[in-house]
């Protein structure tokens, strides 16, 4: 290949000189693409960086001096491939998680006061409406609560039966609780993701879905309250509900942030606003996911083991206070104020 006759075109000579370096890059990129950059030795990794820069340089030159379409196309593709390998994400999953937990999520929560307010207000209004509607006409209960969720806990049920659902074994033998917990977790998380993602439609569907969740709770609460079991139900709900319902509200807040970005983009274009607010919104839904895991564990294992209402209240609200402390206090270092 070294037959460099003076007769040769300038662009062909250019290609002959540089081709070995491109081929080397091609081999390295193929390896890294298949087995990851970690599979390269020190020398190979160094070569990858050098030959990548050379190829980029060649591309820039070739675009100017060469009219060989095959060459320019090849270099374009080679550089794109190498670019994707060189600029692959390099963070470790562990570092990512710890950063998310110590600073990312708490800060995102503290920046989202208005959306969080929307989320919690949606749930609260729903609950109040459900409660009041029930006392107007108990048949509302059947409108709000799907029969498989109600599980016999209807307005017609006796106080004794209702009490047994709070303190009994719920007919679930202990070894089935694991399956129950995993079901709850995946079901609730699916709902939370849906509540979040629906926020893109101007946050209205998120609000409605959370409101509906509130209605359900309100009507449910009213059924028990009518039979004088308000305190017991409150305790029963508290142990996991503080975490679980907050998680739904937080997912709604995440959705609301997306919706607000579209509704009130401020000085940015809507597209940019969506991208900007998306950062915090995603952190909110990750937080909701974490809280739902915890809620499912409590609900699956702790709720039926702990039978005293006082203890249930203490555990539930204690965990709630722990969440609050984490979200309010973590990640407040010097850099935080500068953001």
């Amino acid at each position: 290949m070294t037959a460099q006759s003076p007769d040769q075109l300038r662009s062909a000579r250019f290609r002959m000189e540089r081709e070995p370096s491109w081929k080397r890059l091609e081999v390295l990129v193929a390896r890294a693409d298949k087995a990851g950059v970690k599979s390269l030795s020190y020398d190979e990794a160094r070569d990858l960086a050098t030959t990548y820069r050379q190829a980029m340089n060649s591309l820039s030159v070739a675009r100017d001096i060469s009219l060989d379409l095959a060459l320019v196309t090849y270099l374009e593709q080679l550089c794109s491939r190498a670019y994707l390998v060189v600029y692959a994400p390099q963070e470790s999953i562990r570092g990512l998680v710890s950063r998310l937990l110590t600073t990312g999520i708490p800060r995102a929560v503290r920046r989202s006061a208005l959306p969080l307010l929307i989320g919690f207000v949606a749930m609260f209004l729903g609950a109040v409406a459900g409660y009041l509607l029930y006392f107007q006409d108990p048949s509302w209960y059947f409108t709000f609560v799907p029969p498989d969720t109600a599980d016999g806990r209807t307005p017609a049920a006796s106080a004794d039966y209702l009490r047994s659902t709070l303190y009994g074994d719920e007919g679930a033998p202990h070894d089935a609780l694991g399956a129950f917990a995993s079901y709850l977790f995946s079901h609730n998380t699916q709902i939370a993701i849906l509540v979040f993602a629906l926020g893109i439609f101007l946050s209205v569907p998120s609000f409605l879905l959370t409101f509906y969740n509130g209605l359900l709770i309100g009507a449910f609460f009213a059924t028990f309250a009518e039979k004088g079991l308000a305190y017991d139900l409150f305790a029963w709900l508290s142990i996991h509900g503080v975490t679980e319902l907050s998680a739904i509200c937080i997912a709604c807040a995440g959705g609301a942030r997306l919706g607000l970005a579209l509704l009130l983009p401020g000085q940015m274009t809507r597209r940019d606003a969506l991208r900007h607010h998306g950062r915090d919104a995603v952190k909110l839904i990750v937080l909701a996911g974490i809280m739902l895991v915890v809620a499912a564990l409590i609900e699956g294992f702790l709720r039926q083991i702990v039978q005293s209402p006082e203890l249930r209240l203490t555990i539930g609200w204690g965990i709630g206070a722990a969440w609050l402390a984490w979200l309010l206090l973590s990640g407040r270092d010097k850099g935080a104020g500068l953001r």
Partner: protein
Amino acid sequence: MTTTPAPYRDIVPKRRVERLLPPEGVPINFYIASVGARLGAQIMDVLITYIGVLLVAFGLFWLDVLPMTATFSLIIILFFLVRIPYYILAELVWNGRTLGKRIARIRVISADGRRLTPHQITARNLMKEVEFFTPVLMLFTVDDLGLALGLITTVWVLGVLIVPFTNRRRQRLGDLVAGTIVVENPKTVLLGDLVAKAPARDTRFEFLPVHLDVYGRYELQTLEAILRDPTKGPAGEVELARVTDAIIRKIAYAPKVAPNDRRDFLMAFYRAQREHLENRRLFGDRREDKFHKTGDAPAVVGKKRWWRRR
């Protein structure tokens, strides 16, 4: 970065080009993946993951090593994991590719020319819930939904399907939130240099500057494509004759070219034309096509439609 298409006619088939500016400062081009390829990849992913879970489930029941409830909870968890978490993890680990995307040869990249961040991957896949899973599941139950909900679902599905067609980069909602685009995975093939095969100048054909002042880059590269990939058989002979005649007429080349020499003539002309144009380039004279003299060139052929104006 800038999204302007290459400002000249392209020899390669018309595809949507996304021009990124990496930190090296040399813009590189990616081809936007077609909506069909993306849908195919998505369907492939659903098939792979669900068949995988079903196989695991069958395996667990058949082996019967775990207690029944543990098996059930494992399967429930698996069914959850193959929805959103699978996509997030796969794109994290394989740098923007899931199994389906690998098969369809497409991948996710960050639209800003920097590396794909975990945040972007999470965001774009979370939106999949409203864009794909929920509407598809609701479509299956559309009979039980009643008129109002059925109508809402239909509007929802249509609305979400339309989004990629409303922007040039074919971004779906999740891509818009995350700032990502889906592109074809580049593959590298280096074809030989036509000129390198015949390094010596063919003395049978002599081209004067007046001959070489006619054509520009577009015509040269069209000729390159013909020479690289000639039509086989008798049709190829006809094509060769047509091309040769057209060139001879256009550049007013006086000497006769024997039918057997047509290919050699075209090679020699390609070489001379390329040398000439490359030299002109060095002097800052970039001739895009044969209209370079008059200047009334249809320089940009890509049609701009009113709904795509940005």
